[in-house]
């Protein structure tokens, strides 16, 4: 018997928390902060990889915190889905940290240490890990709070008037969703007397159908706000573009997907259904179309990407709405691909802004000649997001489409909308290509706020910023290259999610 793997399940949460503490204590030494941040995230990525392999071979790994057996104690569960998303998220977090360090965002480019950036960054990572791993509804709430509180600080750091405005919207909407989540937890507890997810799975099924629907819809709204599902998406294109490049990339990559993961987990585990969920199908269509059409109207590069982000949340909602193993596994694969590619695009947008000094599409041009490397990175990332074969986006989208067409007439129609939304995405991204990379070279705008943390309008870009972005592009390409084994893993994850049995047995023991 090998050493107990369950021991490493809490580490993806504990290591970043420890790292956050060290970076606060060592806030006088920027070098120490950087090393701690990178070492911590690298170790978490390795651990997540181990968890994924173990969970895939032997089924869910469960750690009982404090030795209390569930349903009394809190359980951390790493199954295929959570380990996969944890791995991808940590890789993205690591790449964005390298990028942010080289952009010198942490110290506002002044060479001094910061007491907020590194601790909050690691805290956010801890919250994300906890959200993926927890097997307890209330701990999920705590994880969201950990993650969101860190994100509030990151989005309002070094505030200017525009950031305050965006920060207000973001914080208020997130707080509202948190309070609604708490309300939902109270109602769930009042109805069932437990907050353990595995225990809830059995008990919610015993409730009257009406009550079950109410609880399911409340959780859908809560996670819908966090995942930016139309019509609950309005806060996102308003706030993300105002965050500094790497922070926006991190948020775009992780936060909404954690919301979607929570939705996927709770809906499949607690509110099991045997046929497609028509309400969510409609919402998925609305999300895809509103996002894609909204993106077409934008002139601000970051806002355009934010709308595309919203649009592609709809793709994942579609996978969940189909509610069969193929759909859910397609959604999981899509989430892994989406985390990577959206973070990449926001980082590229940061690089473009650094060079041109603006985010306004009509004020730049000719970057193909002045920054060919950037053009290559953008082209790959854009084609991946649009889902052009043979990229990762195509693989993930194909999985979704196949799951939808197999089920019935309505999902088939929605699958058609998926194709339309993909084409609109391609159009929006091609528009960016024409405006930014083709045409006459435009002189970069001067930095209108030299004191601000982001240096713009300079051709001098640290190589590591390119390296970090290139690393993420490589992860995207790896998803495409290893699509076979990867979709096999998500396929098994999808079957697990809908059967529920492996999860329940792993958490509650064989008696369930």
């Amino acid at each position: 018997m090998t050493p107990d793997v369950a021991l490493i399940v809490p580490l993806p949460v504990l290591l970043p928390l420890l790292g956050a503490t060290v970076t606060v204590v060592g806030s006088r030494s920027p070098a120490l902060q950087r090393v701690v941040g990178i070492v911590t995230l690298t170790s978490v990525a390795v651990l997540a990889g181990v968890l994924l392999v173990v969970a895939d071979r032997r089924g869910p790994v469960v750690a009982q915190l404090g030795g209390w057996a569930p349903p009394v104690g809190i359980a951390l569960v790493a199954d295929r889905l959570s380990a996969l998303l944890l791995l991808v998220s940590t890789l993205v977090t690591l790449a964005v940290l390298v990028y942010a360090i080289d952009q010198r965002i942490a110290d506002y480019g002044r060479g001094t240490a910061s007491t907020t950036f590194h601790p909050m960054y690691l805290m956010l990572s801890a919250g994300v890990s906890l959200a993926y791993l927890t097997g307890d509804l209330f701990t999920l709430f705590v994880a969201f709070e950990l993650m969101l509180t860190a994100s509030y600080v990151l989005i309002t750091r070094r505030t200017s008037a525009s950031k305050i405005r965006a920060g207000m919207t973001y914080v208020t909407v997130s707080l509202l969703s948190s309070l609604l989540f708490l309300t939902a937890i109270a109602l769930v507890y009042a109805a069932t007397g437990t907050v353990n997810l595995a225990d809830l799975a059995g008990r919610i099924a015993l409730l009257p159908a009406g009550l079950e629907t109410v609880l399911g819809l409340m959780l859908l709204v809560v996670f819908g706000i966090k995942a930016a599902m139309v019509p609950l998406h309005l806060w996102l294109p308003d706030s993300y573009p105002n965050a500094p490049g790497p922070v926006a990339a991190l948020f775009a990559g992780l936060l909404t997907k954690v919301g979607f993961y929570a939705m996927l987990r709770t809906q499949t585990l607690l509110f099991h259904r045997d046929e497609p969920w028509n309400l969510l199908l409609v919402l998925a269509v609305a999300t895809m179309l509103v996002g894609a059409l909204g993106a077409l109207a934008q002139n601000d590069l970051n806002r355009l990407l934010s709308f595309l982000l919203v649009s592609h949340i709809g793709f994942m909602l579609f996978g969940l709405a189909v509610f069969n193993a193929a759909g859910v596994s397609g959604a999981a694969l899509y989430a892994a691909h989406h985390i990577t590619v959206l973070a990449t695009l926001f980082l590229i947008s940061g690089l473009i802004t650094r060079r041109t000094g603006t985010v306004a599409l009509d004020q730049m041009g000719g970057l193909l000649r002045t920054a060919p490397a950037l053009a290559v990175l953008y082209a790959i990332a854009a084609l991946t997001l649009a889902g052009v074969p043979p990229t990762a986006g195509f693989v993930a989208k194909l999985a979704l489409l196949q799951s939808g067409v197999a089920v019935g007439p309505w999902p088939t129609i929605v699958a058609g909308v998926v194709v339309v939304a993909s084409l609109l995405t391609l159009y929006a991204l091609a528009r960016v290509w024409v405006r930014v990379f083709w045409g006459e070279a435009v002189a970069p705008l001067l930095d209108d706020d030299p004191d601000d943390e982001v240096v713009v309008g300079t051709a001098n870009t640290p190589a590591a910023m390119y390296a970090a972005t290139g690393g993420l592009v490589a992860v995207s390409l790896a998803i495409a290259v290893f699509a076979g084994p990867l979709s096999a893993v998500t396929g098994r994850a999808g079957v697990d999610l809908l059967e529920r049995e492996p999860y329940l047995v792993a958490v509650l023991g064989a008696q369930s």
Partner: protein
Amino acid sequence: MITVNATMALTIAVLFATGFYLLLQRSLMRVLIGVVVLGHGTNLLLQLAGGPPAAPPILGTVPAEAIGDPLPQALALTAVVITFALTTFLLALGYRAFVLVGHDEVQDDIEDRRIGTQSLPTASLADPDDEVDEAADDDVESQAGR
């Protein structure tokens, strides 16, 4: 199944209604108070989920069936701490807004407004106050170009 105390239910309903009303206001101070009130409502709801008042959960002092459910209190305590921390943060944010902008009202998204009015110039070509519109538009554009 828990029977709900009508007074508690009414109190929670009023707190939720007041909280949501205040959340819809423009001033961040009112939003803040709304969040606080809503937080109270939620915490009371958590308490209510634990059932009617009962003996403290200490083994050996009272028979086991007289003991109240301690879990909702633990949950509410965690939630109180979190709400408290976020209230403080929101307060600081409101103050910062007051220092930077001069008031704490949540403003419209400039870029969103600009895009919303984008189709108007063709329609308002004959409009005499078009000049004013364009000037405003330029102003907005220069801000959006940051």
